[in-house]
C-alpha cells in the first residue's frame, strides 16, 4: 500500500529545489575556486590556476583579520546573551504582575528584520543627532565614534546583537527551566544544598541539552551575521566580519575576481562545517564513556 516510490515522488520537489539552490552553489565554488576567472579581463573564461587562489588566501590579512573579528564578536555576544538570557528566564519562572506583557515586549526584537535592527541602532549611534554619542559626550566626557574606533564599533555590534538575540536565549531557557521536574530540586534543598549547589548539580545538568542547542544555533547565526552589522557600520573598521568580507569581495559590482571569491567562499564553508560538526558531536553526546 505504501510504495516507497510514491514517497520519493512526494519528496522530490523539495529535493530538487534544495539540490539546485543549496548543493549546486557548493559544487560551483568547489570547482571555480581552482580557476582564475576574471569577468572583466581581456578574455572572459576560466583558466586553471591550481592552488593559486588558496596560496593568495592564506596570506590575505584582511580575510584572516575578519575571521578573528568574527570569533571575537561571536564569543562576546553569545556569552553575554546566555548569562543575561538565563537570568531573565529564571525571573520569568516566578509569578509577578504584568509578566505576559513584559514577555511579549521582550520577544519583539526577535522578529524584526536584521536590516531594520541595523537601522535602529545606526540611528542611535549616528554622530550629529544620535542620543548615544551625545549622552556619552555630555555626561561622561567620552568620545564615541564608531567610524573611527574599531573597538567601539565591535562593542556596538555586540550590544546590538545582544539586544536582538537575548530574547531567543530567554525563551529557550525558560522552556528548559519549566521542563525540570520539581522533586530533585526539592530533594537537594532538603539535603542542605545552597542555591549555587542546586544550580550547579541539579538545574544545569537538566538544562544541558537545551543550553547546548541554543548555543549551537546562536553560534551558527552569529558567525554569518551580515545585514545588521553592515547597516550599522557600513563595513567600517572593527566590523569587517567574514560574512561581510566575502560579500564585499564576491558582490558582482565590487570585484570581478570570481575565482578568488569562490576560494574564499569555500574556505568559509569549510570553517563553518568543521565548527558545526564539532558542536553537533558535543550536543549529540557521542562522547565515549557517557551513558546514552
Amino acid at each position: 500500500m505504501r510504495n516507497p516510490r510514491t514517497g520519493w515522488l512526494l519528496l522530490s520537489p523539495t529535493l530538487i529545489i534544495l539540490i539546485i539552490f543549496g548543493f549546486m552553489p557548493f559544487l560551483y565554488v568547489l570547482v571555480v575556486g581552482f580557476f582564475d576567472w576574471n569577468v572583466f579581463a581581456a578574455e572572459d573564461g576560466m583558466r586553471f590556476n591550481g592552488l593559486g587562489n588558496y596560496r593568495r588566501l592564506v596570506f590575505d590579512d584582511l580575510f584572516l583579520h575578519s575571521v578573528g573579528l568574527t570569533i571575537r564578536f561571536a564569543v562576546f555576544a553569545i556569552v553575554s546573551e546566555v548569562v543575561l538570557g538565563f537570568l531573565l528566564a529564571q525571573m520569568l519562572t516566578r509569578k509577578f504582575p504584568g509578566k505576559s506583557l513584559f514577555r511579549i515586549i521582550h520577544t519583539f526584537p526577535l522578529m524584526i528584520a536584521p536590516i531594520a535592527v541595523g537601522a535602529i541602532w545606526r540611528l542611535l549611534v549616528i554622530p550629529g543627532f544620535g542620543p548615544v554619542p551625545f549622552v556619552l559626550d555630555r555626561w561622561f566626557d567620552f568620545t564615541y565614534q564608531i567610524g573611527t574606533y574599531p573597538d567601539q564599533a565591535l562593542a556596538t555590534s555586540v550590544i546590538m546583537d545582544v539586544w536582538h538575540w537575548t530574547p531567543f536565549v530567554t525563551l529557550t531557557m525558560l522552556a528548559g527551566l519549566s521542563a525540570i521536574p520539581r522533586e530533585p530540586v526539592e530533594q537537594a534543598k532538603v539535603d542542605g544544598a545552597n542555591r549555587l549547589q542546586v544550580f550547579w548539580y541539579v538545574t544545569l545538568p537538566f538544562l544541558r541539552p537545551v543550553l547546548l542547542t541554543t548555543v549551537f544555533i546562536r553560534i551558527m547565526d552569529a558567525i554569518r551575521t551580515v545585514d545588521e552589522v553592515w547597516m550599522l557600520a557600513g563595513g567600517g573598521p572593527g566590523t569587517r566580519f567574514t560574512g561581510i568580507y566575502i560579500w564585499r569581495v564576491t558582490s558582482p559590482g565590487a570585484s570581478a575576481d570570481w575565482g578568488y571569491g569562490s576560494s574564499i567562499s569555500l574556505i568559509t564553508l569549510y570553517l563553518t562545517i568543521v565548527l558545526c560538526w564539532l558542536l553537533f558531536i558535543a550536543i549529540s553526546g557521542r562522547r565515549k564513556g557517557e551513558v546514552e
Partner: protein
Amino acid sequence: MRQRAMRTGTTVGFWVFMTLLTLIPIWWMFVVSMRSRVELFSRPNLAISRLYMENYSNVLTDSTFQRYMTNSVVVSSCNAALVMALALLATYALSRYKLVGRDNIFFWLITNRMAPPAAFLLPLFIMFTRSFRIGDWTLFDTQLGLILLYCVFNLPFAIWLLKGVVDGIPIELDDAAMIDGAGLGGVLRHVVIPLAAPGLAVTGILSWVFAWNEYLFAANLTSVEARTITTGLAEFVTVTGTNWGELAAMSMITLIPSAIIVIVAQRYIVMGLTFGAVKE
C-alpha cells in the same frame, strides 16, 4: 510575606528596566521618523513635539517604495505558500514511507539552513545570470528567483517543524481513510491537513517573516524590478546625504508585520527558531 512583596517588586522593577532597554531604540526611531531634517540636528531629546507626517507620506507615495513593498509582499506570500505545500508533502513522505537514508536526508536539510549565505552569493549570482537562461530571460531580478531561492532556508526549518506534527498523527487514521477508498490526495486533504492545520499555520507565518526579513540574497540577485523592502532600506544609506527621517519611517513600516506576528504567534516563535528542538 513582606519579603515576598519585596522580591516581586524587584522583579517587576528589573523587567520594567529591561522593557525600557528594548523599547527605547525603537522609540527613538519612531521619534526620528516624526521629525524634519532640520529638527533632527538640534539637541537630541526623546519627546515628540508635534505630529510631522511628511516622512511617512513621502515614503508611502513614492512609486519605488510601492514597488518594493509589493515585491516583498508577493515574494514572502508566495514563498510561504510554496514552503507550506512542499514541506507538508516532504514531511508526509519522511514520516509515512520507508525511504533509504531518511536520517541522512534530515542531517543534510539542517546543513542547508546553517550555511552562511554570503558564501553562496557568487555561485548563485553566476547561476542566476548565466545558467538559468531562456533566450533573454534569466532568473536574475525576478520575483520567481527569490521565491524559489528562499526555499533553501525556509524548507529545512519547515520540515523540521512539521515532522513532529505529522509524526503525531496516528497512522491508523490514514489506513482507515484508505480502506474507505481515499487515495493519497484524499488522505492528505481529509486527514492530515485538518489535523496538522495549527502546525501548518505556524510554519507559514514564520516562513513568511523569514522571507520578509531576508536581505543579502535580495540585495545581490535583484537590480531594479524585483527589489524588496529590506534592500530599499539599505539603499537609503548613501554617501551623499542620507534622509534619516524617511529611513526611519520606512523601517517603522517594515516593523509592522513583526509586531503582529509577535502578538499572534508568540508561543511558537521558540519552536520555529530552534527547528522544534525546544518546545514550550
